[in-house]
């Protein structure tokens, strides 16, 4: 039977020994270490919605252009809506119970 206890959400991470909550996610949810690029702090701050000096963003011009494009794409996904037929299908399934 499904466990619906919200407290169990993400339990797999909680069960992995961790020194502090500030550490990286547990290695158990990936099979190989991730390669990572250097993303300048100003770009992270801008993406996090913080006030950033424009000159700092232009100092990381390539990364700024790249993340603006990614933001444009993710912004488009932010407008995705539930298929119009789905709420009715859910209600019909509920009524069958």
């Amino acid at each position, binding site marked *: 039977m*499904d*466990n*619906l206890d*919200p*407290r*169990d*959400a*993400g339990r797999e991470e909680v069960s992995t020994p961790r020194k502090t*909550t*500030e*550490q*990286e*996610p*547990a290695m158990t*949810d990936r099979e190989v270490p*991730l*390669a*990572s*690029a*250097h*993303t300048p702090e100003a770009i*992270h701050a*801008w*993406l*996090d*919605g*913080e*006030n*950033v*000096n*424009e*000159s700092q*963003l232009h100092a990381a011009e*390539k*990364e700024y252009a*790249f*993340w603006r*494009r*990614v*933001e444009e*794409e*993710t*912004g*488009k*996904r*932010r*407008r*995705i*809506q*539930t*298929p119009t037929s*789905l*709420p009715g*299908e*859910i*209600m019909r*399934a*509920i*009524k069958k*119970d």
Partner: protein
Amino acid sequence: MKGYTSVVKTSQAQPPQEDEVDADQAIIDRVLAGDRESFATLIGRYSDPLYRHAVGMTGSPDDAADILQNSFIKAYQHLGEVRGRFDAWVFRIVANGCKDWLKNIRRSHLSYEEDDQPSGYETPEEELDRGELRGDLDEALGALPPSLREAFVMKHVEGRSYEEMAELLETSVGALKMRVHRAREALQKLLEERYL
């Protein structure tokens, strides 16, 4: 006066206000008292952000719809167990459904359906380029471990604040910032050869 321009990105989803939480509880009370139709109001209120989460996590609109349907049915069946915010409770059901899906699937390339938004691009070359980024971003997201993917999707696709994410995932803002930053750096690494 400072000699620079400050830039801030603004796109935050708002959590429900206190009166909305009370309104949710009133709807739940009506459903539990036998007014099944009222459950449709809760579906209408929260299905869009939950669907976006499921699409972001699975990369598949069809699978996202299945997860959403199963999650709302479970929510209906266990409605009497809601304590606190309904939106947070049902979010965790959907999030767990997505994680179960990720555990069970061997993922192949998946793409998003077009929506009806105008592209805003001037030339067919730019339009093609945009389509390529979409597919490559899907593929790169699929390469992330679930916890990083979840954090990135919640921050960038759902537009949630770190505080809202921390409340929904029951973890700290610092831990989530670290996950989002790591997800960005991994995505940049995966995509930089082509796009940087």
